[in-house]
């Protein structure tokens, strides 16, 4: 239960996440919300408030992870496990994954694709205090075609009518967001990442239905044709957005005009580039190559090609969310900082831009920026700190010192209480 508290730190991110407030304190009220962020020297009456001296750390809003699959084992056995394990086993994996994410500093997490029987009970358990974990925004099962991308934890729907019905079913079960697979994906050998799975009309029907029910739609799209369908349908966010050519001998088919339309229409993109950095680091340390999907084996986009396109999209005004694709090989649940790290090291963000992307910007994409993502009066007191200064070295984000969820510390000075 939250209690009135004061968290003092040498550096606290300002409310725009673009500079430090030095020697400030976050004052937390009895409801676990930020009452004020003020210079420590101006703290007046501190009686009745527990004071935490966090010391020489950088205190930030809790990280927001926009893309997880909590029930998948983040290793090369992920596919074998997901196709053979029981729901019970997946629930057990999710318990450990949720704790790991929270202790790394992720206080809000969007899961965009896990079995309904697994992920909704996990959220209920976190909200009931049965297990520790971040605040969860959930898609539940992704909507896909029969045998389509992630069918093994998705809900299969082939026609427009089926898709609309499944959108309603997911909302009934408690989904806050709809995930639909607009193209095939690398994880699923029976899907084709270079080809669309739905026509634009079907995607449009999903968007209309989701909007009618007050939620939004994110779509997995690797293929250029799938991205075009998403744009035509008014999909709110595109996941991956890799512009794969439909020709298996040609790696990419980037369409700058399409990118400009994404920017114009305010369509967010989750570039999942942190996953690439983690994979490269793992392989440099001797880990084996991920299994290559047959659809891309003949002509894979080079990392440089992908980064060049993502930079160009950003230059055109496309905004990015920090989604790691947690659960894929090497994207472990405590690696959310690799979103910001990759944005700086690969995409040319400044460290503050990357910090904002991981907090207030992604909060806006998730439509939760009224409650989390920034340390200012009235917001939920979700915070994480790191030793060092991530505005100078973004890699400092990778190791959390303190984590506070709703005003309640779950980790202090590197020691976990959960």
């Amino acid at each position, binding site marked *: 239960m939250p209690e009135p508290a004061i968290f003092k730190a040498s550096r606290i991110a300002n409310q725009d996440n673009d500079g430090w407030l030095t020697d400030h304190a976050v004052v937390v009220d009895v409801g676990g919300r930020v009452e004020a962020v003020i210079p420590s020297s101006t703290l007046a009456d501190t009686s009745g408030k527990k004071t935490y001296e966090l010391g020489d750390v950088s205190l930030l809003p809790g990280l927001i992870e926009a893309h997880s699959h909590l029930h998948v*084992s983040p290793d090369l056995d992920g596919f074998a496990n997901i196709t053979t394990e*029981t729901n*019970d*086993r997946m*629930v*057990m*994996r999710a*318990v*450990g994954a949720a704790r790991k994410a929270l202790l790394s500093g992720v206080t809000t997490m969007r899961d965009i694709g896990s079995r309904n*029987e697994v992920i909704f*009970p*996990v959220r*209920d*358990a976190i909200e*009931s205090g*049965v*297990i*520790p974990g971040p605040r969860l925004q959930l898609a539940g099962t992704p909507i896909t075609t029969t045998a389509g991308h992630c069918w093994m934890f998705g809900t299969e729907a082939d026609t427009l009518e089926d898709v609309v019905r499944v959108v309603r079913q997911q909302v009934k079960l408690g989904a806050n967001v709809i995930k639909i697979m607009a193209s095939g994906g690398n994880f699923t050998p029976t899907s084709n990442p270079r080809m669309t799975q739905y026509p634009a009309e079907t995607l449009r029907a999903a968007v209309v239905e989701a909007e009618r029910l007050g939620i939004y739609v994110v779509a997995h799209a690797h293929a250029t044709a799938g991205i075009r369908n998403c744009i035509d349908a008014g999909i709110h966010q595109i996941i991956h957005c890799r512009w794969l050519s439909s020709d298996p001998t040609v790696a990419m088919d980037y369409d700058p005009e399409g990118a400009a339309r994404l920017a114009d229409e305010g369509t967010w993109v989750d570039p999942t580039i942190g996953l690439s950095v983690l994979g490269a680091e793992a392989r440099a340390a001797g880990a084996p190559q991920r299994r290559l999907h047959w659809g891309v084996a003949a002509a894979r986009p080079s990392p440089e090609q992908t980064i060049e396109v993502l930079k160009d999209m950003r230059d055109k005004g496309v905004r990015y969310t920090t989604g790691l694709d947690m659960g894929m090989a090497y994207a472990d649940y405590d690696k959310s900082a690799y979103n910001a790290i990759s944005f700086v090291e690969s995409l040319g963000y400044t460290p503050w831009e990357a910090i904002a992307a991981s907090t207030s910007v992604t909060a806006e994409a998730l439509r939760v920026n009224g409650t989390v993502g920034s340390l200012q009066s009235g917001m939920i007191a979700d915070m994480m700190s790191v030793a060092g200064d991530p505005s100078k070295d973004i890699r400092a984000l990778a190791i959390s010192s303190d984590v506070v969820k709703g005003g309640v510390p779950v980790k202090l000075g*590197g*020691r*976990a209480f959960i």
Partner: protein
Amino acid sequence: MTENAVFKANRVANAEVTAWLPDHAVIVENGRISDVVSQSSIADGIPNTHEVHDLGDVSLLPGLIEAHAHMHTAAGPDPLYTQQSAFNDSKEFFIMRAVDHIRTTLLSGVTTMRDLGGPSDVVFPVRDAVRAGVIPGPRLQLAGAPITTTAGHCWFFGSEADTAEEVVRAIREQVKLGADLIKIMSTGGMFTPTANPRSAQYPVETLRAAVVEAERLNVQIVSHCLAADGVRNCVEAGIHTLIHARWHDSDFRKGLAYDPDVAQMAADKGIWADPTTGHIMIGDVRISAGDVPPRVPHWAVSAATVPEEEHDAVLRDMRERGVRFVTGLDMGMAHGEFDMSAANAWSFVELLGFSNWEAMAASTVDTAESLRLASETGAIKAGLSADLMAVSGDPSNDIKDLFNCTDVVVEGRLVKRDGRALV
């Protein structure tokens, strides 16, 4: 995968858990203890082949053995919440609680945990996941669903069986599902409003049939018994361990009906007792400190509440007659939190007259013997599984130092180091 390792500590418990070996080291190879040697006699080349952990000024003991847990229930200071959540929560909630709880227990220094009653669709999948390395946890020995009468004690996670034939079938079913032992409720219990803790649930013939069937299938059988009638039935039937061993009179107006002859028979037959004094003592400490309200007595015992001192005197007499005690907290019940296994040893010292070393031996080597695991765990000696826990301080001076767990090794795998969880 477990690496070869050396764990050095200023104080290492000897193989009998009766004294410290000063400045010794435990050598671990392939998950098992290969040697226990003086630090000064470690071969020079050992860092080339073993990871060396110098734990420093700690007391290194065998991992604790917790003989009585309900991993799926919500322990805590509020008994109503514990009870209602056990009644109402979904299987998924039970699984999630269990995953969280067994990790907590492991990190408190418990490397072997016996679960004496949980839904079989919860506890067996959890054990499978621990064994598969998917989730962290102690070695688990499981009863599965306890066998009880219709509406009897813990029916809401038990297997209801009313006749001798049904009890035998229920034992076979639990063994088929993977039970390592059988738990049967020979009397009612406080946790279950529709059960009567003062009266027997089964006649001695039924309990005897259960013992015969369990022994035929090579599993132990332990029995919950709060009433003197139930204790007598269990002892006559040859039940292997008496859980609680409280001797409530069948007359609602009376307290205990302790029968020293039955206690002597239990001792003579080598029957163990699990007095579950730890969680009762923790509750008493909290109540007397005003941290929680007094207990609400069960309807069957409210007319004649028995002072704990009276029960403790009975337990001491049982011990003097030769009944041996296991360290079962009743984890998952009110005041039986999952990091409180050390309260077993504390209560044995505080209430039952054990020396500190006797209590530490009870928590390790003795309970391992009772659980039939003495050739696997419970002592720091060559050949056994490398199950270790270290505490700061010296629990031979202050038994409460057992709560200050700094390091944990289970089956050779370091899962906590210097107070920090690695799992």
